[in-house]
């Protein structure tokens, strides 16, 4: 029997969908607030987080052309040991190294390469986010 769906509160009045994300690396874990972003191909985390958990993101390693609103930049891409959110873990997940502006109330984005492992139902009318195994 597949694991049951998980239900989380969803506040339709907020300007983004916040989610707590635990990133795992060879030297530890870091927990930061991200925004759920179905428009982001990859999960995005700041440089200091990736360095703190044991990675050295640099433009000379693996990288990707990163299309943001208004610019295209080459950004480091790091495959972390694990990305955990909503009580579920995706192992060996690529994460783009990118620092969001200080004005942003979240430090990263939880992108499609995490979300596509599940069925995610954003039910704004009933104020529920439902995460189900595929």
């Amino acid at each position: 029997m597949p694991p049951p769906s998980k239900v989380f509160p969803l506040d339709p009045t907020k300007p983004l969908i916040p989610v707590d994300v635990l990133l795992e690396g060879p030297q530890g874990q870091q927990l930061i607030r991200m925004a759920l972003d179905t428009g982001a191909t990859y999960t995005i985390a700041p440089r200091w987080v990736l360095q703190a958990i044991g990675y050295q993101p640099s433009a000379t390693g693996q990288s990707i052309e990163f299309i943001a609103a208004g610019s295209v930049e080459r950004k480091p891409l790091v495959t972390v040991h694990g990305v955990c959110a909503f009580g579920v873990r995706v192992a060996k997940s690529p994460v783009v190294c990118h620092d969001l502006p200080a004005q942003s109330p979240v430090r990263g984005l939880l992108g499609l390469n995490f979300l596509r492992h599940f069925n995610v139902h954003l039910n704004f009318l009933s104020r529920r986010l439902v995460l189900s195994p595929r």
Partner: protein
Amino acid sequence: MSVRTIQPIAAIRHRHPREWLLIEVARLDRRTTTPVTGRLVAHAKRPERLERQAARTKGLVYLVFGSDTLPKGYAAAF
């Protein structure tokens, strides 16, 4: 109240709605990946100093803004 007291993280955030908070996590609900309680280690108007402090801290810490709202006059397009 001492900043070293273990408190619900929602209460810490509620008291500092327009600041960045560095919280040492005392209890993490692994079923939801939600930090439940913790100790406020530091707070600041900008995140940079707290990021450096978080990177040096042993144990699980949580860097979060006090509220999930954007500054007045801002909108997000990530």
